[in-house]
């Protein structure tokens, strides 16, 4: 091919990439945090007996999961202002990723909830706990332990979805990489380094999740 790799130009802008990565992590962290709250509420709604509670939750999950996240990102940033809702780039993306992760996490949590024996709720009721206390002290802690393995892949997948923020010029890792690509023409080098950063970050995330899993595992 006769092409010699030269990373010098990329290394000169490495700080920019790191700043981008930091922003990616920040976007993912805040969105997943909000998404976890949404996901928990929706998961309980999905498992509710009342159709008035269950149906809206099911509709939310169905709509969000059947939309490509890029479409949601573009819709929120370009279409919502036309309807009078004007958000900044970052706010708009965080809102979208939160709502998106909420739907995915709701499904993960729901699977964890239905595997918890009903007898545990009854045992809680029998000692005089309210349903809310039972959820907080018994059901959610057990559900989280149940779902940690699948939660790990969802979290990593949501982190990677932050790259779509580049589409609306949020200066996260992918956006910064594209900028360096355009400025230096070191196309191959730039994307190799950006890819390396994604892989490394995801590996660290996976290791962290495994650590949490081990720390929370119940001795038997």
């Amino acid at each position: 091919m006769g092409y010699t790799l030269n990373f010098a130009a990329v290394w000169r802008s490495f700080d920019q990439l790191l700043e981008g990565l930091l922003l990616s992590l920040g976007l993912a962290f805040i969105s997943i945090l909000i998404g976890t709250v949404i996901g928990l509420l929706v998961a309980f709604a999905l498992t509710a007996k009342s159709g008035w509670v269950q149906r809206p939750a099911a509709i939310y999950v169905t709509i969000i999961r059947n939309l490509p996240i890029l479409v949601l990102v573009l819709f929120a940033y370009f279409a919502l202002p036309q309807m009078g809702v004007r958000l900044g780039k970052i706010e708009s993306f965080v809102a979208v990723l939160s709502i998106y992760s909420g739907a995915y996490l709701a499904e993960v949590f729901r699977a964890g909830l239905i595997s918890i024996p009903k007898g545990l709720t009854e045992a809680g009721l029998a000692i005089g706990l309210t349903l809310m206390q039972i959820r907080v002290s018994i059901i959610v802690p057990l559900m989280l332990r149940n779902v940690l393995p699948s939660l790990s892949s969802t979290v990593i997948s949501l982190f990677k979805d932050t790259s779509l923020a580049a589409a609306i010029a949020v200066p996260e890792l992918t956006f910064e990489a594209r900028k360096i690509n355009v400025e230096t023409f070191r196309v191959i080098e730039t994307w190799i380094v950006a890819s390396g950063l994604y892989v490394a970050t995801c590996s660290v995330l996976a290791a962290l999740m495994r650590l949490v899993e081990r720390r929370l595992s119940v001795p038997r």
Partner: protein
Amino acid sequence: MSKVLLEIQGLRKQYGTVEVLKGVDCTMHEGEVISIIGSSGSGKTTMLRCINMLEEFQGGRILLEGEDIGYEQAGSVRRRKSEKDIARQRALTGMAFQQFNLFPHMTAAHNVMLGLVKVKRMPRDEARAVAEKWLDRVGLASRADHYPGQLSGGQQQRVAIARAIAMNPRLMLFDEVTSALDPELVGEVLQVIKGLAADGMSMLLVTHEMRFAYEVSSRVIFMNQGVICEEGEPKEMFVRPKTERLAEFLKTSSFN
């Protein structure tokens, strides 16, 4: 006679169109140990579960120390009490289940402490002391920091009994507590229940252990098809059953 603890009047319960309790009447005094026997589907477990509102019931009343359990009558309208009220009433009774239902992510001590801390608002160190006292009573002082998964079935059931008793209930409900146990583990659980009976604890037991019902009960209730078919002292009931039904049931049970 000591004072009335529990009064069940015309208790009716249906699942859809199937009536499982067809008007049960029963009065229980403080300190009584009553065993409820009968074939499966006779409604004995359902009746027990109505007493702490794990089951809703459509007709009749349950009074614990004179207070209506679960429902209140406002004029001609009968409505379910608030969840807060029901939770408070549930804490007046303790229940042990067939499947133990220990919280698997908590140690034995934490299982016992949870209700003390969250319901009785007891400080943690005080709750810990109460938990240890009761675990000691069921012979599991050395297992306080074990998780349910590290205990045998018999030990788990004893922790579950300690968890219920630690709340200092007015009445203990036992729902076939030995049915899920290996035969060699049944004895240790029955021993604990006998100890409680000797202490004067008021208890209602749904059981298939006829020999145990005979030994521990002050009274036995035989249920059949959603009604109380016969009741009396165990000596009378097991030796000279008055009804054909009971005689038949005893023949097929493990009593002899």
